[in-house]
């Protein structure tokens, strides 16, 4: 079973993401901000990370950069799931090493499609 780390400061959003992914057979672990997400990622072997951008303590882009510095996360797919939709922010995400950018509110079927694609 693939393990996915969902990082978001909104408990509702984490719950939505977790439900959609668990209903498709994935194991989901959660973190409420980038700093906590980094800790959880370092402690657990994750196959995919899905993170929000605007969060207290550590934002999503910083989390992506920090994860890419870890040996185990050099190639693990990382998706940004955020309300931010500007091309500038997306370019920053790409430069930081993110695999993809999804704009909230997300469509569950699309999320699952993207997850399957990046985990292939």
């Amino acid at each position, binding site marked *: 079973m693939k393990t996915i780390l969902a990082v978001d400061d909104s408990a509702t959003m984490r719950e939505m993401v977790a439900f959609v992914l668990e209903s498709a057979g994935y194991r989901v672990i959660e973190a409420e901000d980038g700093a906590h997400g980094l800790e959880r990622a370092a402690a657990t072997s994750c196959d995919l990370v899905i993170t929000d951008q605007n969060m207290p303590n550590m934002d999503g882009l910083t989390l992506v950069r920090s994860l890419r510095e870890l040996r185990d996360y050099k190639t693990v797919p990382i998706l940004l799931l955020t309300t931010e939709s500007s091309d500038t922010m997306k370019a920053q995400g790409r430069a930081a090493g993110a695999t993809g*950018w999804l704009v909230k509110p997300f469509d569950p079927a699309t999320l699952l499609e993207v997850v399957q694609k990046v985990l292939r």
Partner: protein
Amino acid sequence: MTQLKDGSGAAEAAQAADLLVTVATTLNERLAVTAEELARSQALLREASDELMTAFRGAADRIVAAQRDTPPDDAPRTAEYGVVLDHLYRAVQHLQSHDLVNQLIDAQKLRVDKMREKLGEALSLADPPVSDPRAAEQWIERSRAMLDCIVAGIRQIDEDGRAPRADKQRAGSVDLF
């Protein structure tokens, strides 16, 4: 209204300063009402969201557990669960909107609170009154300090980068790099 007897321009400066105090006070009162209405709207939305989340959670937990306990070759049940999941997926989209609106209200409340704080600071500069009411420069200096404070408040509310952006056209869009 501040009364001055000399004709050195202090009277006009004092009138302008009083007008500024009146405007700042009125604006602060209006913002207090706005803050209260925002809080009330958010409380109602939260209550509704909490109820919906409780109902959603119950249904979601049961369907995930039922799926887990159903053998993969049980086609009729799997199809039935698929239908239920479709309904829940639709709910997921709308519950996200509730959450985003909540965050948006949070951001607006923060902006209003920051502006009220700055207006309060500006108004505190009007008390105690100037030491020499006949000196126009004292009134002007006080008005300038009040305006600086108000302008700082306006700048500050625009600096808050944590407000969720509402971009309906791009909502749900995907870019894979």
